[in-house]
C-alpha cells in the first residue's frame, strides 16, 4: 500500500516537474494574452476556461506551476544550505557562536512564519528577491533546529575526533565524514520543507504579497479568480487543487523514504 502510494507520488511529481519545465511547449496559449471571452467556461474556451480578462486558465496554471515549484525549490536549497552550515558551525565552535545562533533561531521560530513574512515584506517591499530571501531565512531555522542535535552527535563521534586529530580542516570532514552520516535525516527534512515551502509561497501569493501580477504562481491564480467562485465557477479550484497535488506527491515520497530509512517521525 505504501509502495503503491510511493509510485503514484513519484509519477505525479515527475509529471508536475515536466509540465513546469516544458510549460512553453505544452501551453496552448500565451499566459498573459486575452485569447478567450472573459469567464469562458471550459467548453467555450481552452481546457479549463478563461479568467476575468479572457486569459487561458490551463496555460496560466502551467506557467504558475513554474513559479510555485521554482520558488519552493530555490528557497529549500538556500535554506538547507544556510541552516545546515550554521548548525555544524554551532556544533563545532560551541560557546558564544552556539548560544547566539540558538537564541536567534528560537526568536525567529517563536513567531509564526506567515506573520514574520508579512511584517518583513511590508517593510522590504514585495519582489521575487525579497520573497525568496525572507522565506529562505525563515525556513533555514527549521533546518538548523533539526540538524543541530544531529551535528552535535556526529561531531562527538570517534572517527570525527580522529579526523580532527589528524589535522583535517573543517571543510574536509563536513564533506567526507559528516554529510554522508546526516544524509537520510537531511533528505527527509528537505522533502518536508519543499512541501511546506509550496504551501507557504501559495499562501503568501494568495494574500497578495507573493508573486506580483501579471505573473502569477498557483496561489496568485487562486487570488485572481477568487471572485469567480461566488458566481459558481470552479476555475479558482483548479490551481488550488494543483497545489494540493504537489504537496500530496512530495509527502508521499517523503513518507516512503522515512519508513525505508526508519527516521524518527517527529521531523518537521
Amino acid at each position, binding site marked *: 500500500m505504501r509502495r503503491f502510494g510511493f509510485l503514484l507520488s513519484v509519477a505525479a511529481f515527475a509529471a508536475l516537474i515536466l509540465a513546469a519545465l516544458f510549460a512553453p511547449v505544452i501551453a496552448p496559449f500565451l499566459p498573459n494574452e486575452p485569447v478567450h471571452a472573459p469567464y469562458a467556461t471550459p467548453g467555450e474556451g481552452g481546457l479549463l476556461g478563461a479568467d476575468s480578462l479572457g486569459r487561458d486558465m490551463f496555460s496560466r496554471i502551467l506557467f504558475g506551476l513554474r513559479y510555485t515549484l521554482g520558488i519552493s525549490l530555490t528557497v529549500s536549497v538556500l535554506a538547507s544550505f544556510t541552516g545546515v552550515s550554521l548548525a555544524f558551525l554551532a556544533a563545532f565552535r560551541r560557546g558564544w557562536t552556539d548560544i547566539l545562533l540558538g537564541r536567534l533561531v528560537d526568536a525567529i521560530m517563536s513567531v509564526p512564519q506567515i506573520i514574520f513574512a508579512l511584517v518583513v515584506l511590508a517593510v522590504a517591499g514585495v519582489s521575487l528577491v525579497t520573497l525568496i530571501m525572507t522565506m529562505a531565512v525563515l525556513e533555514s531555522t527549521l533546518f538548523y533546529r533539526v540538524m543541530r542535535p544531529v551535528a552535535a552527535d556526529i561531531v562527538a563521534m570517534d572517527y570525527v575526533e580522529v579526523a580532527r586529530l589528524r589535522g583535517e580542516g573543517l571543510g574536509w570532514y563536513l564533506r567526507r565524514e559528516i554529510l554522508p552520516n546526516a544524509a537520510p535525516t537531511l533528505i527527509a527534512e528537505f522533502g518536508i520543507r519543499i512541501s511546506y515551502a509550496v504551501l507557504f509561497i501559495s499562501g503568501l501569493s494568495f494574500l497578495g504579497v507573493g508573486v506580483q501580477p501579471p505573473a502569477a504562481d498557483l496561489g496568485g491564480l487562486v487570488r485572481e479568480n477568487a471572485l469567480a467562485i*461566488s458566481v459558481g465557477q470552479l476555475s479558482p479550484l483548479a490551481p488550488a487543487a494543483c497545489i494540493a497535488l504537489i504537496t500530496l506527491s512530495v509527502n508521499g515520497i517523503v513518507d516512503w523514504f522515512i519508513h525505508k530509512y526508519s527516521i524518527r517521525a517527529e521531523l518537521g
Partner: protein
Amino acid sequence: MNLPSRKQLSPMRDFIVSRGVSGAVSLLLVTFLVFVGTALLPGDTASALLGQNATPEALAALRRDLGLDQPLLLRYLGWFAHAVRGDFGTSLASGRAVSEVLLPRLGNSLLLASVAAVFLLPVAVGGGIAAAIWQDSWFDRLLGFTSMLFLAMPAFLVGYILIYVFAVRMGWFPSMSVAPFFGGAAAWINILALPVISLVIIGQAHTMKLTRTAILAVLATDYVLMAEVKGISRRRIILRHALPNALSAILSISILTVAYLIVDVVVIEMVFSYPGLGKLMVDSVSYRDLTVVQACGLLFALIFIGMNFLADFLALLVNPRQREPARGA
C-alpha cells in the same frame, strides 16, 4: 522548617522564570529585528507615504515629523516604551490611533478562533483517542487518510470548496462576511458558520495525529503492558491508565492547536473577507501602513508566544515529572 515545601515549588518557579524570560527575550529580539530591518532597507515610512514624486524637502520635513531623523536605537526605545503602554502610534493610512483600529479587529479574530476551538478540540482530540483505541482499524485508516489529505491542502482550498458547496450551490450561508455586525445571534451564526467550519477542517488533522501519537506513546509503556498481561480490556486500559497519563500531552496539544488557529485565521479571514486582525494586517501590508503592520505582527507574536508558554506551563502543572517540557513543533 519549611525548606522542603519551598524546594518542591522551585521547579515550577524555575520554569516560569526561565520560560518567561526566554519568551520576553524572543519578543524583544523579534521587535528589534523588525525595527533594524526597517532601518537598513532602502526607503522608509516617509518615502512609502509620499510616493515616488516627493520632493527632498517634503521628505525631510515628514521624516522630522515622524521622528525618523533620530538615531535608530532611540527610535526603537521610544516605540517600545509606547507599545508597552498600548500606544502603537497612528495609522499611516487612516490617521487614526493604531490601537483604536486594532482592538475591534482583535475582538473579531478572537471570537472566530475561540468558536472554532470549541468545535475543533472535542472533534480532533476525540478522533485521535478513538483512532488510538482502534489502532489499524478501518476507522484509524480513514482518519489517517483524511488527515493526509487535509494536511496537504492549502487553507484557502478548503474555504473555497465550502463557499462553492454551501454558499453558491446550496445558498445556505453568505460567501462573504460583509453583512453588518448587528442583528443578534442569527446574523452571527450566519457570518461565522463557514469560516469556523473551514478552521475546524484545516486544524483538526494535525491535532488528531498528535493526540493519537501521544496515546500510542503511553500505550507502549511497561505499566500498560502489565495491565494487558493482567487481562484488562483495551478500552479500560486506555480510559483508566493511558488517558490520565497522556493528559498533559493532550492539554498542550490543545493549546498549541488554538495557537495555530489564530495563525490560520489570517488566510481564512481573507477568503471570507472577515473583518479580523489577519485581514487588517494583510490589507495594511498592501497599503504599506507600517505602524499597523508592526502592531498586528507584535500582537500575533505575543498571542502565539503566550500560548506556547501556557501549553508548556499546563503540561508541567498536570505532570510534575515533566521537568523538561517538550517544545511545541
